[in-house]
C-alpha cells in the first residue's frame, strides 16, 4: 500500500517542484500587490470613465475561474505568437492579475477605514496630497491591510498548483509525472498534500500573529 523507498525517491523532484511553486507565488504576489494598488486608486478616482470600467473588470475577473483564465492567456498567446512567453511567466502573470482584483478590495477597505476627519485635518494643516498619504493616511491604513494581504498570499499559494495545467513543472506536475511513470499516485500526492497542509497552517499562524500585532499597536 505504502512504499517508503519510493517516497524517498520522489522527494527531491517534489522539493524542486515546490521551489517553482514558491517562485510563482512570490512573483504573482509582487504583481498583485502593485496592480491591486493601481485598481484601488482608479476606483477611488472621481472620473467615472476610469472608476466604472475598473470596477467592471475587477468584478469580472473575480467571478470567473482562474483555470479558464490561465487557459485563455496561455493558449491564445501560444497561437498568436508561437509561445514567446514561457508557461511559468504566463502563470505568474495570470496569478498576479487574478489576485490583484482581490488585493484591490483590501486596499479599498483599508483606505476607507481611515476616518474622513483625518483627511480634513490634513487639509486644514495645509498638507499636500502626497504628504497626507505619506504621514496621515498610509500609517493608519497599512496595519489593518497586512493580515488581509497575508490571507491572499496563502490563497494564492493554494491556487498555484493550477499552473500544472499549463505544463509548469511545479509541485503538482512533478507529483503527477512521478505517479504516471510508476502507477503509484498515493505517495507523491500524499506528500504534496502534507506539504500544503504544513505550509498553510504555518503561514496561517503567522497571519494570526500579525493580526494581533497590528491590532494592539493601534489604540
Amino acid at each position, binding site marked *: 500500500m505504502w512504499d517508503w523507498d519510493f517516497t524517498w525517491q520522489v522527494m527531491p523532484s517534489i522539493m524542486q517542484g515546490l521551489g517553482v511553486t514558491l517562485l510563482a507565488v512570490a512573483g504573482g504576489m509582487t504583481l498583485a500587490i502593485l496592480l491591486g494598488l493601481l485598481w484601488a486608486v482608479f476606483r477611488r478616482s472621481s472620473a467615472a470613465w476610469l472608476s466604472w470600467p475598473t470596477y467592471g473588470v475587477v468584478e469580472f475577473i473575480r467571478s470567473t475561474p482562474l483555470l479558464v483564465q490561465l487557459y485563455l492567456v496561455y493558449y491564445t498567446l501560444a497561437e498568436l505568437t508561437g509561445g514567446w512567453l514561457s508557461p511559468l511567466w504566463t502563470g505568474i502573470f495570470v496569478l498576479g492579475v487574478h489576485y490583484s482584483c482581490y488585493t484591490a478590495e483590501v486596499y479599498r477597505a483599508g483606505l476607507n477605514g481611515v476616518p474622513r476627519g483625518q483627511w480634513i485635518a490634513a487639509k486644514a494643516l495645509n498638507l499636500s496630497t502626497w504628504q497626507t498619504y505619506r504621514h496621515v493616511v498610509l500609517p493608519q491604513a497599512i496595519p489593518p491591510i497586512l493580515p488581509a494581504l497575508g490571507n491572499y498570499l496563502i490563497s494564492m499559494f493554494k491556487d498555484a498548483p493550477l499552473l500544472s495545467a499549463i505544463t509548469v513543472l511545479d509541485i503538482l506536475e512533478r507529483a503527477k509525472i512521478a505517479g504516471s511513470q510508476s502507477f503509484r499516485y*498515493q505517495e507523491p500526492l500524499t506528500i504534496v498534500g502534507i506539504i*500544503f497542509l504544513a505550509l498553510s497552517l504555518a503561514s496561517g499562524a503567522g497571519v494570526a500573529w500579525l493580526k494581533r500585532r497590528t491590532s494592539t499597536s493601534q489604540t
Partner: protein
Amino acid sequence: MPAPFDLLPILLKGLPATLAVTVGGIAVALVSALLAGLGRSSRDPIVRWTSIFYIETFRGVSAIVLLYWFFFALPLLTGLRLPAILAGIVVLGLNIGAYGAEVVRAAIESVPPGQRQAAKALNLSAWQTMRYVVLPQAALAATPPLGNLMIELLKSTALVSMITVVDLTQMGMFLRTETHRSLAIFSMLLLIYFVLSQCIALTVRLVEWRLSHGQDYGGTR
C-alpha cells in the same frame, strides 16, 4: 450564427456537468459548514476536535490537490473508487464547507448574548433557543459571506475538468484541440461562468431579503 457564437451550442454541452457539481457541491458545503460550525464550539471534545481537524485539513490543502488525492491516491490506498463527478461534488463541497464552517461560527458568535439570556428567561430549551432565536439571526449574518463562498465553489468546479469530468471547461479544451480558436472559446467560457456567478449572487440577495423580512433592529428606528 456569427463567428464566436457558432461554438456556443457545443460548449453548452458541458453545462449539465458544471451545474451538477455546483448544485451538489453547494448542498454538501452548506451541510458540512453547519455541522462543523456548530461542532467547532461543542463542549464534547471529540466532536470539537473532529470539527477542527476537518476544517483545518480541508482549508489547508488546496482544492486541486485534494481533488487529485481523492481521485488518484485514495483508490490505490483503500480500493475505494468514486466516480469523477461524485468525487468533484464531495471534495469541492467539503473544501468550501470548511471555509463556511468559520462563517457559521462567526455568525453564531455575532448574535448578542442578551438574546440567549432572554431565551433562557422564557424557559426555552437549548434546542428551541438554537432553532428559534440564534439560528434565524445567525443565518442573516452568514448569508452574504456564504454567498461569496458559493461563487468560489462555482469557480472551482472548473477543476473537475482535470479529473476527466466533461464540464464546461473540458468541453472548451476539446473544442480548442479541434479548432484552435482559443481566444473565442475561453472568452466565451469566462462569460458563461460570469453569468452563472451573477445568478448565484442574485439568488443570495433574494435569500437575504427574505431572511431580513420582519427583522427589527432595536433602537435604530
